[in-house]
């Protein structure tokens, strides 16, 4: 039987939320699943890896994402264990790491997959910032995929079987691209690409200080705070908060747009949200055409009311 590998992405030794999706997808493929995980503390991750038969654990005294070390290590594993498919998350790290592995192993990689039909060898992925979708066939023995977060179903495993654990050392042969430091963001922000709920502000927010209103609601809902480009350009929000064509592509269950007109480039980044709510004082604003629910009104009145109502039910 063919073998499929899944890269279990960790951040400061914590599992990324979408690993569950990638693992479920790998299991669904019907192939032998190998989980590849870079950690010195495998025990804390075993629960999530339940039902996987083989785990390849990579250890090092100084484990820290370096693209060259990680891509060399994984490329060797792919060859040694004869993996024909390899899945990961289309995260910042996934987009850095997977193309390097694909180039080193001469595989065919498709990023940002929203559907993978293993049986018929068909992958669906958004193009033109989601304005169109494409179905792709990969004519290659060895295929790699990164999946868009929050798209694939998660299947819990009730398997009690003990996995086989294979331990490897990090391959530290060559370091051309050297990560020397990580600059933390000032606040403990929720990662927008993985957030279940996002509340965003646009030019209609008028001032930086007014984003505090959105942050309060975000805290209440455990949501992320996003922004339109106009809000970023005006200095109300930082660039990592920008949603859209040239910002982040997000895919939450609920997206609340406050004082955002709904330009096509903004829409490109949030159109796949399950439910879109628009708050805008202009009933003609294009955002209302794309929203599931809209409230026409002054956001400075609506947002505080929204907070009050949410507090009641939570």
């Amino acid at each position: 039987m063919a073998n499929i590998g899944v890269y279990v992405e960790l951040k400061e030794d914590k599992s990324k939320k979408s690993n569950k999706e990638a693992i479920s997808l790998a299991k669904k493929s019907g192939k032998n699943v190998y989980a590849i995980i870079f950690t010195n503390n495998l025990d804390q991750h075993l629960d999530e890896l339940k039902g996987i038969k083989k785990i390849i654990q990579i250890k090092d005294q100084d484990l820290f994402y370096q693209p060259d070390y990680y891509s060399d290590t994984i490329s060797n594993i792919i060859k040694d264990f004869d993996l024909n498919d390899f899945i990961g998350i289309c995260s910042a790290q996934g987009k850095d790491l997977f193309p390097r592995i694909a180039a080193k192993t001469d595989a065919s990689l498709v990023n940002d997959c929203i559907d993978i039909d293993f049986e018929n060898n068909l992958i669906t992925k958004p193009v033109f910032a989601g304005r169109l979708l494409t179905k792709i066939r990969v004519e290659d023995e060895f295929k790699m995929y990164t999946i868009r977060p929050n798209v694939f179903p998660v299947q819990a495993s009730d398997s009690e079987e003990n996995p086989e654990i294979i331990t490897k050392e990090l391959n530290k042969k060559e370091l051309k691209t050297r990560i020397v430091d990580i600059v933390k963001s000032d606040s403990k922000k929720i990662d927008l690409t993985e957030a279940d709920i996002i509340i965003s502000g646009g030019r209609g927010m008028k001032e930086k200080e007014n984003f505090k209103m959105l942050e309060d609601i975000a805290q209440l809902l455990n949501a992320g705070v996003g922004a339109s480009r106009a809000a970023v350009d005006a200095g109300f929000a930082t660039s990592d908060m920008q949603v859209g064509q040239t910002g982040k592509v997000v895919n939450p269950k609920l997206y609340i747009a406050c004082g955002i007109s709904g330009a096509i480039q903004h829409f490109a980044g949030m159109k796949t949200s399950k439910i879109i709510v628009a708050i805008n004082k202009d009933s003609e604003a294009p955002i209302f055409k794309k929203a599931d629910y809209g409230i026409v009104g002054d956001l400075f009145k609506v947002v505080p009311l929204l907070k009050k109502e949410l507090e009641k039910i939570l």
Partner: protein
Amino acid sequence: MNIFVCIKQVPDTEATLSVKNGKTINEDGIKWIISPYDEHAIEEALKLKAKIPETNVTLITLGPKRCENALRGGLAMGADHAIHIETDEHVDNRIIAKALAIAIKQEGNYNLIFIGKQAIDDDSYLTHIYLAENLGIPVSTNVTLFNYESEKVFVEREIDGGEKEKIEMTTPCVIGAAKGLNTPRYPSLMGMMKAKKIPIKKLSLQDLEIGEIDNKIIVEKLFAPPEKPQGKVIEGDIEDGVKELVKALKDEAKVL
């Protein structure tokens, strides 16, 4: 110093896209632009050129005849030379990267290569990293800050959760440009006049010894995603409206 900037011509972000033959877009009436991330790449190259004497900025693109306009646009911004690998064939990212790598090597010396982290048509996020791996040189992607000092490159790249990686590379290397990097300049009138006179070097895939095109990524179907039905817009008293909204989010949509 020799800088290369790889660019791609793409439909304008506002363009109305329709599908032709179920596999490609209908190009009639489309306004073409330089992919926005590639504009950031050009700008960063030009900023460096302004600082370092005797620096040449060469643009390079692969695509059909119309892509000449993208090169002219970049020349008008201030680039010195342009190379056009002209082909009407659809080629996948791996082959594009290979062609770019060979063309750049043929030119002799290269110190830095700037390129957008993704093109906004196929949104593959692949070409820049494939290019670097092809040339066997370092690469950073999603770069929002760039510094060059005595043959060393220092960049910052944005990662998830608003954090940034600080990265060191030696030259030659590839920089995958992202939005925060700079604000691309508009071409000046003088620049546009000058650009018209710069000859564009034409190459074919055969010139680069890419004979047979063995695409491995094959587009079977291109289609528009299903449209969402018009939602519910609540007007009138906002206090009632917000109550109605929260109730609907909880009970109807079940997202709270």
